[in-house]
């Protein structure tokens, strides 16, 4: 599997930039965080012989994308490159992929669904 970090950056950097530049985007994040310190969403992109880890840290000051596995995530999504990138792009729905067993979620699925909706909302801003 080829390193997916460039593709991940390509998908997420416009969203990160919108959150940092538009107050209404940050207010969507703050509403989601709802008084907590923040949320940490991770994902594992897996093939049979390879794994890549990434995580996003959302807090009231913005969002950061990091390469690597976060030790104490709120949700972790695990799937093949096509599925995970599809979810991040908004082309695939996490709950539908879950039903097909193409993705696994460690943590609260509803949070995963909200996370995907938020990405979608901010992408359209």
């Amino acid at each position: 599997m080829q390193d997916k970090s460039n593709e991940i950056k390509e998908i997420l950097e416009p969203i990160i930039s919108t959150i940092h530049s538009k107050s209404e985007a940050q207010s969507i994040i703050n509403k989601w965080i709802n008084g907590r310190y923040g949320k940490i969403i991770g994902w594992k992109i897996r093939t049979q012989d390879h794994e890549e880890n990434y995580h996003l840290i959302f807090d009231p000051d913005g969002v950061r994308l990091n390469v690597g596995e976060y030790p104490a995530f709120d949700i972790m999504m695990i799937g093949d490159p096509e599925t995970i990138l599809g979810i991040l792009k908004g082309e695939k729905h996490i709950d539908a992929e879950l039903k097909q067993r193409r993705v696994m979620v460690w943590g609260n699925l509803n949070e995963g669904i909200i996370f995907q909706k938020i990405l979608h909302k901010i992408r359209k801003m």
Partner: protein
Amino acid sequence: MDIWECIYTRRSERRFKGESGRAIPGKDIEEILDSARYAFQIENIPQWRFLFIRDQNTKQVLADFAQEVAHMIFGQSYEIFSGHLWYLPEERRPTIAEYTQTGELWKYPLEADFVVIPCITKGAWFDSRVPYMEQATAVGGMAIQNMWLTAHKLGWGAGCNAMPLNDIRRRELFSTFSGVPMSWQMCAAYCFGDRTSARSVGPSRASLEGVAFNEHWGNRFIRIGFRDDSSEIAIPTKDVTEVIKGVRNCYKFDANAEVEDWKLEKMIHCGIWSPNPENLNHWRHIVIRDEKIKEFVAQCTKEAFLLEYKASFEQTKAHHPHLSDDELLQYVEWMLDEGWKYPLECNVMILTTFAKDWVEYPHIAGTLPGGIDYIWSTATGCAIQNMRLAAHALGLETQVNLYPIAEFRRNEQFVTHLGIPSSWVPLTLLCVGEAGDAPDFVFKKRPVPSIKDLVFDEHWGIRHTPLK
């Protein structure tokens, strides 16, 4: 299976295939039972025995009891029950309530391949200085967690059904039926079997900041991701069985070795991912690095060691069968001079507390004598075991310290100093650090009791026959 994969993908399974499913092979059952004996034992004396059940008639009794009690508890109020489903959107809650409130869901002991009922001694072997049932039941929980993870590794499902042995009348009936003496507390029915399908989502847990404090109750432990750079963390891993067998009690820490915060996060996170009754997230952890508190704990340990090692050589000998008389004399001397200092030398301590008073079910699940309060301490034991396993996988060592907790005056001082509300019960103090240098006899491996001495087949007193 990788330890992290095992901890994060283990689920509480409540749907088994029953007769249409695969029977668990004998060698898998033996491996599952065997994993229990590697867990922590206070003074190296197993405070638990397991009742191993495969008989369908006994499973039927458990299933009937479970359904009756679950219907009684969950059926009384949708409003209360829906609160248990805090992690779901409101519109999805009635569907779950529908099959839970009738108690139908809880009949799964009938479909399980085998059921294990942990029985915890109510104060036998008082020379082991465990005055409280909470600690003994937590130790039972540590053993159960090893079995749960092992079953999961082998591809089998497991679930804790607290319902059948919740109330004292049914427990009495089951005691008569199974021969379990009333001096042993039965803590739930752990069901193992061929699950209908692996759960690929969940569990829903509180955020780490919601359950972990820094130095003092109420002072949130904030994840490093919210206060520093978390991009360069490389998490090592190990095979789950290797970790289960590798955890040891560390009496000597390297006082100069620091435990990074992310490793503590990982440990607590694994605790959060342990099985949790009704998903009530009933534990809180306090991370302690304060030197004054360490001194206090060390003094408690010193006093306890004086009592323990100066009281009776015969008793000490009985607790240390792995040491020759010569070694034991050196060991006792070392423990009195050096051994008690481990709380000072460890880098960090994690105090785990739990809440046993969930008043939403008064008269059923609260603190009534014979109520289900020991389910909470047992489950917290599972969380502590996950933390110990995580520590070992991260290259750290741990020691379970009970001394400031098990003695009531010290406990009072400790609780007041840390600001722990009276509704939360301190359970264990986990000392964490890297191992230091000590004479060989300190780290000499203790013998692990044999499973045939710890497990009874179908009825109390019938020693387990290993399966092939």
